[in-house]
């Protein structure tokens, strides 16, 4: 591939813009470059908790819960209107799921299918949707229909690509990683689909930490309860500027013993968390997990020396709202 001088200069200039990111962000986090007329700052600190007694680990059918919650989040009459406000038909949408949690905790395929249907209502063709995580094997293990060709929704892991990760390491604060090309090159928009669970090192692993699945070296960033690293990964422009919607799939939650599934510490939550602001959603998830721990007579995560301080760091960096009292929780 040849590159013109203009192209080179443009790239060099852009590189300067992507200088190390530390401290508070100088610009609003929700500058996604889509639907310019819509100020996404208004969704800051807004989290929908959509629950339905029928949505449990046995019946993982989200039915209308997703659309209902999304309409409540964006204040639209119908879910389809909300999808259209968030996505355009030109978008290539990367749906990042947490496949590492395993079949009993990871987002169920019915929910992912509902997300895909929602995107279609916004006009996004199925062929421009990639459902992904680190490896195809893990997706397959969840029962997802792995697909790398054809007109349908693409479902595959970064490892399936001949060149899965970028060749050079980019910095995001204290993190230096190669990002998955799915998010770095192919996607124009990202949906993060996490789970509601405890993590023995990170405290919790819900939405913000799910993007450890987008870098080639997550093992390097688990020290100090993953703080500030999780926040720094999320400050990377490829995430910060493309992330449009966050969904926590929680028919069940796990309040202790994570990250692997441990039935002893799960509870039926029967719902979804929805937010444009991932920091706020993580903060609400932390509150839910802490309450469940309290009910079970367990120590708080802070007492357990694994408080997820990265949520607070993300708040300080301007990535979202980390103060619980400042978050508007909308129950559906």
């Amino acid at each position: 591939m040849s590159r013109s001088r203009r192209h080179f200069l443009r790239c060099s200039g852009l590189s300067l813009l992507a200088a190390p990111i530390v401290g508070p962000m100088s610009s609003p986090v929700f500058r996604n470059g889509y639907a310019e007329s819509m100020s996404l700052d208004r969704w800051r600190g807004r989290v929908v908790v959509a629950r339905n007694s029928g949505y449990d680990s046995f019946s993982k059918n989200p039915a209308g819960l997703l659309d209902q919650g999304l309409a409540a989040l964006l204040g639209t009459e119908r879910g389809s209107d909300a999808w259209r406000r968030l996505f355009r038909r030109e978008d290539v949408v990367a749906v990042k799921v947490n496949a590492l949690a395993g079949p009993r905790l990871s987002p169920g395929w019915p929910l992912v299918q509902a997300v895909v249907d929602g995107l279609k209502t916004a006009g996004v063709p199925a062929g421009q949707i990639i459902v992904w995580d680190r490896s195809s094997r893990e997706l397959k293990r969840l029962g997802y229909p792995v697909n790398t060709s054809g007109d349908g929704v693409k479902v595959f892991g970064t490892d399936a690509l001949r060149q899965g990760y970028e060749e050079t390491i980019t910095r995001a604060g204290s993190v230096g990683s190669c990002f998955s090309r799915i998010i770095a090159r192919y996607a124009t928009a990202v949906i993060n689909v996490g789970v509601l669970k405890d993590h023995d090192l990170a405290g919790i692993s819900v939405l913000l930490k799910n993007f450890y699945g987008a870098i080639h070296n997550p093992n390097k960033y688990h020290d100090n309860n993953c703080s500030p690293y999780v926040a720094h990964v999320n400050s990377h422009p490829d995430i910060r500027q493309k992330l449009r919607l966050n969904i926590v799939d929680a028919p069940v939650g796990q309040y202790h013993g994570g990250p692997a599934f441990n039935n002893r510490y799960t509870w039926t939550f029967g719902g979804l968390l929805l937010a444009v602001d991932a920091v706020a959603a993580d903060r609400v998830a932390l509150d839910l997990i802490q309450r469940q721990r309290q009910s079970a007579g367990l120590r708080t995560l802070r007492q357990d020396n694994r408080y997820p301080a990265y949520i607070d760091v993300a708040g300080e960096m301007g990535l979202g709202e980390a103060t619980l009292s400042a978050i508007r929780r909308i129950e559906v």
Partner: protein
Amino acid sequence: MNSINRRHMMRLMLLGSGAYSLGQDRAPSSGSSVNLDDLQFKAEPSLRPVEAMFWEKQPQDKKVKCTLCPHECVVADMERGTCGVRENRDGTYYTLVHSRLCAAHLDPIEKKPLFHYLPGTKAFSIATPGCNLECKYCQNWQISQFRPEQIECIEASPEVLVANASRNAAPTIAFTYTEPVIFYEYMYDIAVAARPAGIGSVMITSGFINREPLRKLIPELAAIKVDFKGFTDEFYRTICGGELQPVLDALVTIRREGLWLELVVLIVPTLNDSIEENRKMFHWIKDNLGSHVPLHLSRFHPTYKLKNLPATPVSTLERLHSEARDAGLNYVYLGNVQWGHPAENTYCHSCGKMLIRRYGFQVVENHLDKGHCPHCRQSIPGVFTKS
């Protein structure tokens, strides 16, 4: 892959230390100019599976039982064992880390530590991701406590590794950093390939392995170092996620098979530093493994999940050193202490004269004469000449 070129090897050696060179920062793409139908995919998935050794089919639901280590995980289809690197695929058990290197370094053999095995030589030291224990103080937790797909690895066949060790004039390949038991098949194949090249293989392990695989492996090894975690089952269960008895059994097996053995005990303040407990351990070692087995008492430093404890006081280690000597152990060393400490040196157990003087991992003086004390001609236990 048939060979590792120099650039590749340099990159690999940096993996273990995390010392990447940073590329230029890149701005995010503003939009996709890629037609997703043009994406290029690998012909083979990563984590190429190799059928595992030591497992049994179970009667129901395509389950398998792993018999490699004392966990003896019964694993359902599509699931993995405790180690996270062995997976049941449609009723057959596979290892996912054969030929997948996450670390490779040329280390002094003293760093393992092996003090009575070819002192002053280098060991081509390698690891794959994963472990069958979860020690709360693991120094290498960033590679041992993650699944192989979470860690950047390169593919290197046993033959390639042996060629690289040979090119680097390393008389030894060391399986280390993580727990080699979990990459048993890879280790075994390397050890078999290394022997004709005149390269010995050493395993740096926790010794949490079943008898049959251990006995099959021993003839292929030149030495073994076991991290003896402590002397109570409670310590093994609560701090390491293992059990004591299988480790004791493994140590006795190694001794009986005649493989050169050294031991390390990491002394952790308040958890396994009691004089009484260690005294029992020293006597058990003497009674079951003999008085000549080198014992390295090592200093704990706060890390991973044990950051609330201080580093072990050197005085504690020195006290335990005396206790071990009093218990009748002839070769007791201190590790992770200030370099130049007298307990880094080797002294003849017969006449007490210094035989090897060390400074950290460096051998400064070696007075051994074909494995004998030059002063009293006492034969010194160990492997001092390349076979």
